[in-house]
């Protein structure tokens, strides 16, 4: 059982993290030598996308656990994590699009990683739509678990296919072997924001799982009332 205390602590830490993130992103870190001020979108874009990949990984793991153990809690975490993942991915794509306009000269491009991420977003929007349509909660949970597993397993194949097709994105600067290509001051801003968004994800997740439990409780009480 995750207590209210943890939820409150995560919420406060997330707010502190986000405020510090804004400070480091806008004031502490220097403007980019080539791109200028617009590069500061990175401090929003990169943490959002990294946390949403993590959120979908959580969906994958908890989906497997749900099929193996049939525990409602795993399904509640999977469902909640998928919702947050969809929100963060959509925001990351929007932020990237705003960043892309002045630097790449276009709002949208059929670049490999952008295309993969958008397909991932579509798969998990489908996941949420399916879950909304299935009335029986245990069937919905099972369908969601199967879709969460397959959707995640599909990502490397989607990525391979679109990489062979075309690529334009700058190479990954954080998640890559060897030393980072980001300047130290910028790294501070980037990691601060990353930590802030991880905390925000944790806060949303705990809150959303608690809502889900309240919903079950309500269904149970209604059934008792009807009986």
């Amino acid at each position, binding site marked *: 059982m995750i207590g209210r205390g943890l939820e409150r602590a995560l919420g406060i830490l997330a707010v502190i993290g986000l405020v510090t993130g804004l400070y480091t992103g806008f004031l502490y870190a220097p403007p980019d030598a080539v791109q200028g001020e617009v590069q500061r979108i990175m401090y929003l874009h990169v943490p959002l996308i990294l946390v949403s990949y993590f959120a979908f990984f959580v969906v994958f793991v908890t989906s497997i656990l749900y099929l193996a153990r049939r525990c409602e809690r795993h399904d509640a975490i999977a469902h909640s994590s998928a919702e947050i993942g969809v929100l963060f991915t959509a925001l990351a794509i929007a932020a990237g699009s705003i960043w892309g306009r002045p630097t790449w000269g276009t709002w949208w491009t059929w670049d490999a990683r952008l295309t993969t991420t958008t397909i991932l977003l579509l798969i998990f929007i489908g996941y949420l739509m399916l879950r909304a349509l*299935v009335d029986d909660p245990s069937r919905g949970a099972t369908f969601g678990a199967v879709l969460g*597993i397959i959707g995640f*397993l599909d990502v490397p*194949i989607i990525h391979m*296919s679109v990489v062979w*097709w075309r690529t334009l994105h700058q190479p990954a600067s954080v998640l890559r072997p060897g030393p980072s290509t980001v300047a130290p001051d910028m790294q501070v801003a980037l990691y601060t924001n990353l930590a802030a968004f991880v905390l925000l994800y944790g806060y949303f997740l705990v809150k959303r799982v608690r809502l889900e439990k309240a919903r079950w409780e309500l269904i149970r009480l209604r059934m008792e009332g009807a009986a």
Partner: protein
Amino acid sequence: MSFVRRVVAIARKDLLAEWRDRESFSAMFFFAFLVLFLFNFALGGDQTLIRGASSGLLWLAFTFTSVLGLARSVQGELENDCLDGLLLYPAPREAIYLGKLLVNFTVILVVELVIFPLFAVLYNMDLWSRLPKLLLIAVPGTIGFAAAGTLLSAMTAGLKARDAMLPFLLFPLTIPLILSAVKGTEVVLRGDPFELAVPWLKLMVAFDTVILVASLLTFEYLVEE
């Protein structure tokens, strides 16, 4: 009875039902034909343009058409409690999945085999000499599409919005497959050396393997009760 014979028995039942009313096949065939026909107007009747885009157009027709057949494969079992009967059949759940997959694969492949020559006639292309190579691309493409479609149709069957939901789940998942099939078909239709299609062929085999293994492991959870 061995596992394979049970799979064949389930497939035989569905193929027999399909043979008697030819409901899926005729719906798919006419739809595919109409799509082919409409390409001409969508692209302003420009024959060179259509021939240049032919591999993409063909697969667009195949994917849109396949959804019609896939949606029926499990939906049909919901009428008259057929699904309960099917679940009583003394076979592992995987046999039901493979049987359904076999039928979906066969029906889609037959539609493709009818559409290839029709396309060749309508747009004056030489497909006959390339048919063996085309099949080498079309078969793994169709296996993957039918495998994902069979699994997902078990989820969407019975839903109110099933006709919208199946393509919504199926198309994003199968994008790598569609992309590979289009690229492979393009290589064959252009008459380029077949080695250029091999990476795409490998990608399709990888997709087919992942989706088949994942489906076999999870299908039993979708049809329980």
